[in-house]
Protein backbone atom coordinates (compact mmCIF):
# COMPACT_ATOMS: atom_id res chain seq x y z
CA UNK A 1 0.00 0.00 0.00
CA UNK A 2 1.32 3.40 -0.92
CA UNK A 3 2.06 5.72 1.96
CA UNK A 4 0.86 9.30 2.04
CA UNK A 5 4.45 10.46 1.99
CA UNK A 6 5.20 8.56 -1.18
CA UNK A 7 2.03 9.72 -2.91
CA UNK A 8 2.71 13.37 -2.11
CA UNK A 9 6.41 13.11 -2.94
CA UNK A 10 5.64 11.67 -6.37
CA UNK A 11 2.95 14.18 -7.25
CA UNK A 12 3.97 16.97 -9.63
CA UNK A 13 2.39 19.60 -7.39
CA UNK A 14 4.86 18.83 -4.60
CA UNK A 15 7.96 18.33 -6.75
CA UNK A 16 11.13 19.87 -5.33
CA UNK A 17 9.66 20.52 -1.91
CA UNK A 18 12.29 20.31 0.80
CA UNK A 19 12.03 17.03 2.73
CA UNK A 20 11.16 18.80 5.97
CA UNK A 21 8.32 20.66 4.24
CA UNK A 22 7.04 17.45 2.71
CA UNK A 23 7.02 15.85 6.17
CA UNK A 24 5.02 18.82 7.48
CA UNK A 25 2.45 18.35 4.73
CA UNK A 26 2.22 14.63 5.38
CA UNK A 27 1.51 15.38 9.04
CA UNK A 28 -1.49 17.45 7.89
CA UNK A 29 -2.75 14.90 5.35
CA UNK A 30 -5.35 12.13 5.49
CA UNK A 31 -6.99 9.78 3.00
CA UNK A 32 -10.65 10.54 2.36
CA UNK A 33 -13.33 8.85 0.30
CA UNK A 34 -16.54 10.24 -1.21
CA UNK A 35 -19.51 8.41 -2.62
CA UNK A 36 -21.12 9.52 -5.86
CA UNK A 37 -23.25 12.59 -5.15
CA UNK A 38 -21.60 13.34 -1.82
CA UNK A 39 -20.54 16.91 -1.19
CA UNK A 40 -16.95 17.64 -0.23
CA UNK A 41 -17.93 21.13 0.88
CA UNK A 42 -20.61 23.77 0.39
CA UNK A 43 -20.35 27.43 -0.54
CA UNK A 44 -19.94 29.78 2.43
CA UNK A 45 -18.57 27.04 4.71
CA UNK A 46 -15.17 27.63 6.28
CA UNK A 47 -12.41 26.61 3.91
CA UNK A 48 -9.95 24.68 6.01
CA UNK A 49 -8.80 22.04 3.58
CA UNK A 50 -7.58 21.41 0.09
CA UNK A 51 -7.64 18.12 -1.75
CA UNK A 52 -5.43 16.12 -4.03
CA UNK A 53 -7.86 14.00 -6.08
CA UNK A 54 -6.44 10.51 -6.48
CA UNK A 55 -9.33 8.88 -8.26
CA UNK A 56 -12.76 9.89 -9.53
CA UNK A 57 -14.26 13.22 -10.46
CA UNK A 58 -15.45 16.24 -8.51
CA UNK A 59 -17.74 18.98 -9.86
CA UNK A 60 -17.61 22.60 -8.73
CA UNK A 61 -21.19 23.81 -8.74
CA UNK A 62 -23.18 26.91 -8.15
CA UNK A 63 -26.90 26.91 -7.43
CA UNK A 64 -28.61 30.01 -8.84
CA UNK A 65 -31.81 31.05 -7.08
CA UNK A 66 -34.84 29.30 -8.47
CA UNK A 67 -32.83 27.18 -10.88
CA UNK A 68 -31.01 23.87 -11.03
CA UNK A 69 -27.33 23.69 -10.03
CA UNK A 70 -24.83 24.55 -12.73
CA UNK A 71 -21.47 22.87 -13.05
CA UNK A 72 -18.62 25.33 -13.49
CA UNK A 73 -15.78 22.88 -13.76
CA UNK A 74 -14.88 19.28 -13.06
CA UNK A 75 -11.60 18.12 -11.62
CA UNK A 76 -10.21 14.63 -11.89
CA UNK A 77 -7.37 12.35 -11.02
CA UNK A 78 -4.20 14.14 -10.05
CA UNK A 79 -5.76 17.58 -9.85
CA UNK A 80 -5.78 19.93 -6.88
CA UNK A 81 -9.09 21.18 -5.50
CA UNK A 82 -9.39 24.24 -3.33
CA UNK A 83 -7.42 27.39 -2.70
CA UNK A 84 -9.89 29.32 -0.53
CA UNK A 85 -8.04 28.01 2.52
CA UNK A 86 -5.18 30.34 1.50
CA UNK A 87 -7.16 33.49 0.85
CA UNK A 88 -9.06 35.46 3.53
CA UNK A 89 -11.84 35.22 4.65
CA UNK A 90 -11.24 31.47 4.11
CA UNK A 91 -14.72 30.55 2.90
CA UNK A 92 -15.62 28.29 0.00
CA UNK A 93 -17.18 30.12 -2.93
CA UNK A 94 -18.82 27.12 -4.57
CA UNK A 95 -20.11 23.66 -3.78
CA UNK A 96 -17.94 20.65 -4.56
CA UNK A 97 -19.70 17.37 -5.25
CA UNK A 98 -18.28 13.97 -6.14
CA UNK A 99 -19.67 13.05 -9.58
CA UNK A 100 -18.53 9.46 -9.12
CA UNK A 101 -16.95 7.50 -6.23
CA UNK A 102 -13.76 9.39 -5.48
CA UNK A 103 -10.63 9.03 -3.41
CA UNK A 104 -8.61 12.01 -2.31
CA UNK A 105 -5.99 13.19 0.10
CA UNK A 106 -7.30 15.99 2.29
CA UNK A 107 -4.75 18.44 3.62
CA UNK A 108 -5.54 20.49 6.72
CA UNK A 109 -5.45 24.06 5.49
CA UNK A 110 -6.04 25.63 8.87
CA UNK A 111 -3.06 23.76 10.28
CA UNK A 112 -0.97 24.66 7.24
CA UNK A 113 -1.85 28.35 7.52
CA UNK A 114 -0.28 28.38 10.97
CA UNK A 115 2.78 26.52 9.72
CA UNK A 116 3.19 28.90 6.79
CA UNK A 117 3.10 31.90 9.12
CA UNK A 118 5.79 30.27 11.23
CA UNK A 119 7.90 29.16 8.26
CA UNK A 120 7.79 31.64 5.42
CA UNK A 121 9.85 29.38 3.18
CA UNK A 122 7.07 26.80 3.37
CA UNK A 123 4.52 29.56 2.79
CA UNK A 124 6.32 30.77 -0.30
CA UNK A 125 6.64 27.28 -1.73
CA UNK A 126 2.93 26.61 -1.33
CA UNK A 127 1.96 30.04 -2.60
CA UNK A 128 4.05 29.56 -5.75
CA UNK A 129 2.31 26.31 -6.49
CA UNK A 130 -1.16 27.61 -5.84
CA UNK A 131 -0.47 30.78 -7.85
CA UNK A 132 0.26 28.56 -10.83
CA UNK A 133 -3.01 26.69 -10.37
CA UNK A 134 -4.94 29.93 -9.98
CA UNK A 135 -3.38 31.27 -13.16
CA UNK A 136 -4.31 28.14 -15.10
CA UNK A 137 -7.88 28.20 -13.80
CA UNK A 138 -8.23 31.94 -14.50
CA UNK A 139 -7.07 31.47 -18.10
CA UNK A 140 -9.45 28.57 -18.53
CA UNK A 141 -12.32 30.61 -17.08
CA UNK A 142 -11.54 33.49 -19.44
CA UNK A 143 -11.65 31.09 -22.35
CA UNK A 144 -14.99 29.78 -21.12
CA UNK A 145 -16.30 33.34 -20.89
CA UNK A 146 -15.29 34.04 -24.49
CA UNK A 147 -17.84 31.42 -25.56
CA UNK A 148 -15.69 30.56 -28.54
CA UNK A 149 -18.19 28.01 -29.86
CA UNK A 150 -21.00 30.55 -29.99
CA UNK A 151 -22.13 32.05 -33.25
CA UNK A 152 -20.39 35.22 -34.37
Amino acid at each position, binding site marked *: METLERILAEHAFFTDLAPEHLRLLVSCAANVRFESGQFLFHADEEANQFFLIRKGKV*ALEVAPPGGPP*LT*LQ*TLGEGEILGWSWLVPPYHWLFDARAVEPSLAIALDGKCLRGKCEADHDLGFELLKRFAHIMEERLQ*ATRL*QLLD*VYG*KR
Partner: protein
Amino acid sequence: MPAPVHPLMPVPCRVRRVARETHDTFTLVLEVASPPRFRAGQFAMLYVFGVGEVPISFSGDPTEGRPIMHTTREVGTVTSAMRRLRKGAALGIRGPYGKPWPLDEARGLDLVLVAGGIGLAPLRSALYAIVARRGDFGRVVLLYGARSPADVLFAREIERWRNRSEIESLVTVDHASRSWAGDVGVVTSLIPRLAIDPERTLALICGPELMLRFAASALRTAGVGEERIFASLERSMKCAVGLCGRCQIGPSFVCKDGPVFPYDRVRRLLEIREV
Protein backbone atom coordinates in the same frame (compact mmCIF):
# COMPACT_ATOMS: atom_id res chain seq x y z
CA MET B 1 -14.21 12.67 -60.18
CA PRO B 2 -13.16 13.61 -63.71
CA ALA B 3 -11.19 16.82 -63.87
CA PRO B 4 -13.62 19.71 -64.42
CA VAL B 5 -13.40 21.65 -67.62
CA HIS B 6 -12.73 24.75 -65.57
CA PRO B 7 -11.35 24.70 -62.03
CA LEU B 8 -14.24 26.87 -60.86
CA MET B 9 -16.94 24.72 -62.47
CA PRO B 10 -18.96 22.65 -60.00
CA VAL B 11 -20.04 19.12 -60.77
CA PRO B 12 -23.72 18.34 -60.14
CA CYS B 13 -24.60 15.95 -57.34
CA ARG B 14 -27.69 15.02 -55.36
CA VAL B 15 -28.51 15.01 -51.67
CA ARG B 16 -28.86 11.46 -50.44
CA ARG B 17 -29.68 12.51 -46.89
CA VAL B 18 -29.55 15.47 -44.51
CA ALA B 19 -28.71 14.25 -41.00
CA ARG B 20 -29.41 16.52 -38.07
CA GLU B 21 -26.50 16.40 -35.65
CA THR B 22 -27.46 19.14 -33.16
CA HIS B 23 -29.88 22.04 -33.11
CA ASP B 24 -27.74 24.03 -35.58
CA THR B 25 -25.39 21.47 -37.14
CA PHE B 26 -26.15 18.98 -39.89
CA THR B 27 -24.42 16.56 -42.21
CA LEU B 28 -25.06 16.39 -45.93
CA VAL B 29 -24.64 12.92 -47.39
CA LEU B 30 -24.18 13.31 -51.14
CA GLU B 31 -24.64 11.13 -54.18
CA VAL B 32 -21.87 12.01 -56.64
CA ALA B 33 -21.61 10.19 -59.97
CA SER B 34 -17.82 10.11 -59.76
CA PRO B 35 -17.07 10.69 -56.08
CA PRO B 36 -14.02 12.81 -55.38
CA ARG B 37 -11.03 10.98 -53.90
CA PHE B 38 -10.12 13.15 -50.98
CA ARG B 39 -7.76 12.97 -48.05
CA ALA B 40 -8.75 13.76 -44.49
CA GLY B 41 -8.45 17.48 -43.84
CA GLN B 42 -9.30 18.61 -47.36
CA PHE B 43 -12.43 20.53 -48.28
CA ALA B 44 -14.81 21.02 -51.18
CA MET B 45 -16.78 24.00 -52.41
CA LEU B 46 -20.50 23.22 -52.21
CA TYR B 47 -22.82 25.24 -54.38
CA VAL B 48 -26.51 25.73 -53.69
CA PHE B 49 -27.86 26.76 -57.05
CA GLY B 50 -29.21 30.29 -57.03
CA VAL B 51 -27.96 30.97 -53.52
CA GLY B 52 -24.22 30.67 -53.26
CA GLU B 53 -21.17 28.58 -52.59
CA VAL B 54 -19.27 27.79 -49.37
CA PRO B 55 -16.17 25.79 -48.44
CA ILE B 56 -16.91 22.81 -46.19
CA SER B 57 -14.46 20.16 -45.05
CA PHE B 58 -15.08 16.52 -45.88
CA SER B 59 -16.30 14.91 -42.65
CA GLY B 60 -16.76 11.35 -43.86
CA ASP B 61 -14.53 8.35 -44.37
CA PRO B 62 -11.93 9.00 -47.09
CA THR B 63 -11.83 5.28 -47.96
CA GLU B 64 -12.88 4.76 -51.58
CA GLY B 65 -16.52 3.81 -51.89
CA ARG B 66 -17.67 5.48 -48.69
CA PRO B 67 -20.39 8.14 -48.90
CA ILE B 68 -19.32 11.73 -49.40
CA MET B 69 -20.23 13.73 -46.30
CA HIS B 70 -19.93 17.34 -45.23
CA THR B 71 -20.87 18.56 -41.77
CA THR B 72 -21.57 22.22 -41.15
CA ARG B 73 -23.28 24.67 -38.85
CA GLU B 74 -26.10 26.80 -40.10
CA VAL B 75 -24.48 30.23 -39.94
CA GLY B 76 -25.51 32.16 -43.05
CA THR B 77 -27.60 32.28 -46.19
CA VAL B 78 -26.00 29.37 -48.01
CA THR B 79 -25.84 26.99 -45.06
CA SER B 80 -29.43 27.89 -44.13
CA ALA B 81 -30.48 26.97 -47.66
CA MET B 82 -28.48 23.74 -47.41
CA ARG B 83 -30.21 22.79 -44.23
CA ARG B 84 -33.59 22.99 -45.95
CA LEU B 85 -32.55 20.67 -48.78
CA ARG B 86 -34.35 17.37 -49.09
CA LYS B 87 -33.39 14.00 -50.50
CA GLY B 88 -32.84 14.27 -54.23
CA ALA B 89 -32.10 18.00 -54.24
CA ALA B 90 -29.36 19.14 -56.59
CA LEU B 91 -26.10 20.68 -55.40
CA GLY B 92 -22.85 21.54 -57.08
CA ILE B 93 -19.53 20.26 -55.74
CA ARG B 94 -15.95 21.01 -56.73
CA GLY B 95 -12.82 19.78 -55.09
CA PRO B 96 -11.10 18.36 -53.17
CA TYR B 97 -8.86 21.25 -52.29
CA GLY B 98 -6.17 21.99 -49.80
CA LYS B 99 -3.49 20.22 -47.82
CA PRO B 100 -4.65 17.26 -45.73
CA TRP B 101 -3.77 16.19 -42.20
CA PRO B 102 -0.20 14.74 -42.17
CA LEU B 103 -1.20 11.17 -41.36
CA ASP B 104 1.59 9.64 -43.43
CA GLU B 105 4.17 11.61 -41.45
CA ALA B 106 2.49 10.40 -38.25
CA ARG B 107 3.24 6.70 -38.90
CA GLY B 108 4.75 5.12 -35.84
CA LEU B 109 3.98 8.15 -33.70
CA ASP B 110 1.40 9.01 -31.07
CA LEU B 111 -1.41 11.30 -32.18
CA VAL B 112 -3.28 13.84 -30.10
CA LEU B 113 -6.35 15.28 -31.81
CA VAL B 114 -7.81 18.40 -30.18
CA ALA B 115 -11.20 19.46 -31.53
CA GLY B 116 -13.47 22.31 -30.55
CA GLY B 117 -17.12 22.53 -31.60
CA ILE B 118 -17.64 22.02 -35.34
CA GLY B 119 -13.86 21.48 -35.56
CA LEU B 120 -14.52 17.82 -34.86
CA ALA B 121 -15.96 17.44 -38.38
CA PRO B 122 -12.63 17.66 -40.31
CA LEU B 123 -10.98 15.58 -37.59
CA ARG B 124 -13.65 12.90 -37.88
CA SER B 125 -12.36 12.29 -41.37
CA ALA B 126 -8.87 11.87 -39.90
CA LEU B 127 -10.21 9.47 -37.27
CA TYR B 128 -11.78 7.28 -39.94
CA ALA B 129 -8.43 7.16 -41.73
CA ILE B 130 -6.60 6.37 -38.48
CA VAL B 131 -9.03 3.59 -37.53
CA ALA B 132 -8.65 2.07 -41.03
CA ARG B 133 -4.95 1.59 -40.37
CA ARG B 134 -4.82 1.68 -36.58
CA GLY B 135 -1.68 -0.40 -36.42
CA ASP B 136 0.28 2.37 -38.15
CA PHE B 137 0.05 4.62 -35.12
CA GLY B 138 0.91 4.50 -31.47
CA ARG B 139 -1.30 6.01 -28.83
CA VAL B 140 -4.22 7.98 -30.30
CA VAL B 141 -6.12 10.43 -28.12
CA LEU B 142 -9.11 12.59 -29.00
CA LEU B 143 -9.80 15.64 -26.83
CA TYR B 144 -13.10 17.26 -27.73
CA GLY B 145 -14.71 20.38 -26.34
CA ALA B 146 -18.22 21.61 -27.02
CA ARG B 147 -20.34 24.44 -25.73
CA SER B 148 -22.83 22.26 -23.88
CA PRO B 149 -23.91 18.60 -23.81
CA ALA B 150 -26.54 19.36 -26.48
CA ASP B 151 -23.76 20.54 -28.81
CA VAL B 152 -21.60 17.43 -28.61
CA LEU B 153 -21.15 15.99 -32.12
CA PHE B 154 -20.81 12.34 -33.11
CA ALA B 155 -21.16 11.08 -29.52
CA ARG B 156 -22.00 7.52 -30.59
CA GLU B 157 -19.03 7.31 -32.93
CA ILE B 158 -16.67 8.59 -30.26
CA GLU B 159 -17.93 5.84 -27.98
CA ARG B 160 -17.55 3.23 -30.73
CA TRP B 161 -13.99 4.27 -31.48
CA ARG B 162 -13.17 4.18 -27.78
CA ASN B 163 -14.55 0.67 -27.41
CA ARG B 164 -13.39 -0.92 -30.65
CA SER B 165 -10.36 0.95 -31.88
CA GLU B 166 -8.35 1.89 -28.84
CA ILE B 167 -8.87 5.60 -29.36
CA GLU B 168 -8.72 7.29 -25.97
CA SER B 169 -11.20 10.11 -25.78
CA LEU B 170 -12.07 12.84 -23.34
CA VAL B 171 -15.09 15.01 -23.97
CA THR B 172 -15.68 18.23 -22.07
CA VAL B 173 -18.24 21.01 -22.29
CA ASP B 174 -18.03 24.67 -21.32
CA HIS B 175 -21.37 24.72 -19.52
CA ALA B 176 -23.52 22.00 -18.08
CA SER B 177 -26.21 21.22 -15.58
CA ARG B 178 -25.88 18.46 -13.07
CA SER B 179 -27.44 15.95 -15.47
CA TRP B 180 -24.15 15.87 -17.42
CA ALA B 181 -21.82 13.35 -15.83
CA GLY B 182 -18.87 14.16 -18.09
CA ASP B 183 -16.15 16.75 -17.76
CA VAL B 184 -16.85 20.47 -17.60
CA GLY B 185 -14.19 22.98 -18.53
CA VAL B 186 -12.34 24.17 -21.61
CA VAL B 187 -10.82 21.52 -23.85
CA THR B 188 -7.33 22.89 -23.32
CA SER B 189 -7.53 21.94 -19.64
CA LEU B 190 -7.57 18.29 -20.70
CA ILE B 191 -4.10 18.49 -22.27
CA PRO B 192 -2.07 18.47 -19.00
CA ARG B 193 -3.85 15.23 -18.01
CA LEU B 194 -2.40 13.27 -20.88
CA ALA B 195 1.22 12.53 -19.89
CA ILE B 196 2.32 13.10 -23.48
CA ASP B 197 5.65 11.86 -24.78
CA PRO B 198 6.44 15.06 -26.71
CA GLU B 199 9.20 13.55 -28.81
CA ARG B 200 6.90 10.98 -30.36
CA THR B 201 3.68 13.01 -30.54
CA LEU B 202 2.03 14.80 -33.43
CA ALA B 203 -0.93 17.02 -32.58
CA LEU B 204 -3.81 17.85 -34.92
CA ILE B 205 -6.00 20.74 -33.79
CA CYS B 206 -9.19 22.15 -35.27
CA GLY B 207 -11.77 24.58 -33.96
CA PRO B 208 -12.38 28.28 -33.35
CA GLU B 209 -9.17 30.21 -33.85
CA LEU B 210 -9.01 31.41 -30.24
CA MET B 211 -9.27 27.82 -29.15
CA LEU B 212 -6.46 26.88 -31.55
CA ARG B 213 -4.17 29.43 -29.95
CA PHE B 214 -4.87 28.23 -26.43
CA ALA B 215 -4.62 24.59 -27.45
CA ALA B 216 -1.28 25.17 -29.17
CA SER B 217 -0.06 27.01 -26.09
CA ALA B 218 -1.07 24.12 -23.82
CA LEU B 219 0.60 21.62 -26.14
CA ARG B 220 3.80 23.69 -26.15
CA THR B 221 3.71 23.74 -22.35
CA ALA B 222 3.44 19.95 -22.49
CA GLY B 223 6.64 19.92 -24.54
CA VAL B 224 5.22 19.42 -28.04
CA GLY B 225 7.16 21.56 -30.51
CA GLU B 226 5.21 23.84 -32.81
CA GLU B 227 6.51 22.00 -35.85
CA ARG B 228 4.69 18.92 -34.52
CA ILE B 229 1.38 20.76 -34.10
CA PHE B 230 -0.89 21.00 -37.16
CA ALA B 231 -3.86 23.34 -37.23
CA SER B 232 -6.72 23.56 -39.70
CA LEU B 233 -7.51 27.19 -40.41
CA GLU B 234 -10.64 28.74 -41.74
CA ARG B 235 -10.93 31.86 -43.78
CA SER B 236 -13.58 33.31 -46.05
CA MET B 237 -13.04 31.65 -49.44
CA LYS B 238 -14.15 32.30 -52.94
CA CYS B 239 -12.13 30.59 -55.66
CA ALA B 240 -10.46 27.87 -53.52
CA VAL B 241 -7.62 27.61 -56.05
CA GLY B 242 -5.32 30.40 -54.96
CA LEU B 243 -6.45 33.05 -57.45
CA CYS B 244 -8.73 35.54 -55.74
CA GLY B 245 -6.71 36.15 -52.57
CA ARG B 246 -9.81 36.17 -50.38
CA CYS B 247 -8.39 33.59 -48.00
CA GLN B 248 -4.92 35.01 -47.84
CA ILE B 249 -3.21 35.06 -44.46
CA GLY B 250 0.19 36.72 -44.65
CA PRO B 251 2.09 35.08 -47.49
CA SER B 252 -0.13 31.98 -47.57
CA PHE B 253 -3.45 31.05 -49.08
CA VAL B 254 -5.60 28.93 -46.79
CA CYS B 255 -7.19 27.24 -49.82
CA LYS B 256 -4.00 25.88 -51.35
CA ASP B 257 -1.26 26.21 -48.71
CA GLY B 258 -3.72 25.02 -46.03
CA PRO B 259 -6.20 24.57 -44.59
CA VAL B 260 -3.88 22.34 -42.57
CA PHE B 261 -0.73 24.22 -41.55
CA PRO B 262 2.18 23.38 -39.30
CA TYR B 263 1.56 25.71 -36.38
CA ASP B 264 5.05 27.20 -36.44
CA ARG B 265 4.20 28.62 -39.85
CA VAL B 266 1.09 30.47 -38.77
CA ARG B 267 1.46 31.28 -35.08
CA ARG B 268 2.72 34.84 -35.57
CA LEU B 269 0.08 35.48 -38.23
CA LEU B 270 -2.72 34.41 -35.90
CA GLU B 271 -1.52 36.83 -33.25
CA ILE B 272 -1.78 39.85 -35.56
CA ARG B 273 -4.81 41.92 -34.76
CA GLU B 274 -6.84 42.14 -37.96
CA VAL B 275 -8.23 45.38 -39.23
